[in-house]
């Protein structure tokens, strides 16, 4: 089945009226997607640590049980950290959603095919790891339901969103790691975040 969704539109819809949602964006295209939807101090785009986005989300979700946390990452990034789905499946935080924007390619390195192009089913992996609410998303209708679940549903939640493999202009977030960390903590924890 051919994908019909565009990745930038997926990010835009999921992050529309994001309120106090905390966002971790995985290395590469998903970090640009999240930035294109509107940069925010409450977005933490990863410029490295490939395979670790979901775990950043888990640590954050456990630390902030009263806030919703969305990890938005790519298929290549998720494939590098599949074990983290098993780790999330043990902890089962109700406030965590992991959404993979799956274009079946490594977008930043020459559009080589990933394992999902050969059929690796990440939603099934997540389900097998104990994340019961794990879905494959292909349509705009499903996307609207996914947005609702991210903001209001019971987690942990996993979704693999199939998108068109397309080369689109980069929209880059700041890349200074210390700055990204400091602005996130200040926006979430207040001015006194680093004074204790």
């Amino acid at each position, binding site marked *: 089945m051919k994908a019909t969704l565009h990745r930038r539109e997926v990010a835009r819809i999921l992050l529309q009226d994001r309120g106090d949602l905390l966002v971790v964006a995985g290395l590469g295209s998903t970090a640009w997607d999240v930035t294109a939807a509107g940069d925010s101090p409450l977005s933490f785009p*990863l410029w490295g*640590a490939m395979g*670790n986005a*979901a*775990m950043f989300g888990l*640590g954050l979700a456990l*630390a902030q049980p009263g806030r919703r946390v969305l990890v938005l990452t790519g298929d290549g990034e998720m494939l590098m950290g599949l074990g983290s789905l098993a*780790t999330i499946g043990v902890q089962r935080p109700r406030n965590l959603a992991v959404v993979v924007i799956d274009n079946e390619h490594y977008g930043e390195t020459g559009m080589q095919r990933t394992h999902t192009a050969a059929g690796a089913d990440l939603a099934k992996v997540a389900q097998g790891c104990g994340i019961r609410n794990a879905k494959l998303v292909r349509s705009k209708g499903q996307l609207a339901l996914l947005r609702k679940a991210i903001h209001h549903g019971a987690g942990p939640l996993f979704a693999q969103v199939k998108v068109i493999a397309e080369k689109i202009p980069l929209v880059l977030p700041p890349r200074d790691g210390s700055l990204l*960390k400091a602005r996130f903590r200040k926006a979430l*924890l207040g001015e006194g975040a680093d004074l204790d």
Partner: protein
Amino acid sequence: MKAKATRWPEELHRTLKAAGVRQVGYVPDAGHQRLIELCLADRALRAVVLSTEEEGIGLAAGAWLGGERAALLMQSSGVGNCINALGSVRECRFPLLMLVTMRGQVGEFNPWQVPMGQATRAVLEAMGVVVREANEAEAIVPAVDAAARLAFGSYQAVAVLISQAVIGIKSFQEQAAR
């Protein structure tokens, strides 16, 4: 002296709590067995079993973004699994507290543990982690206490290497019997 030496996991548990640690990520190791049990039994701590040590780096970084302190427990072999992830700790200046039980040192019975065990300090230092060694039981708690202050007070990545001499496993049979 002997009794005190065998109670270091209990003291370490108290030290971590006093340092404000709320999340403890771990990949099981025989040397950390008692401390892991204490953390799992403590409702004020979230003990997170990891499928690989690298996950712990993300967990600790995410915890800090959310205003919580984390500690990681692992064996020296696991340090090798953390290398690239440690790059994000250095770039973002995340505090990090790692308690590493050493293998591959004096008395090692498994030759496959030796290469990573011997390289542990060099690997950590190459990635910008401050390394302290605890070569006897009495040195562990003060070393971790100081490491926690350096990590969370000065935003440093700090590892305490707990010597194999302290843990004292000498054979596969002994390890299996624990």
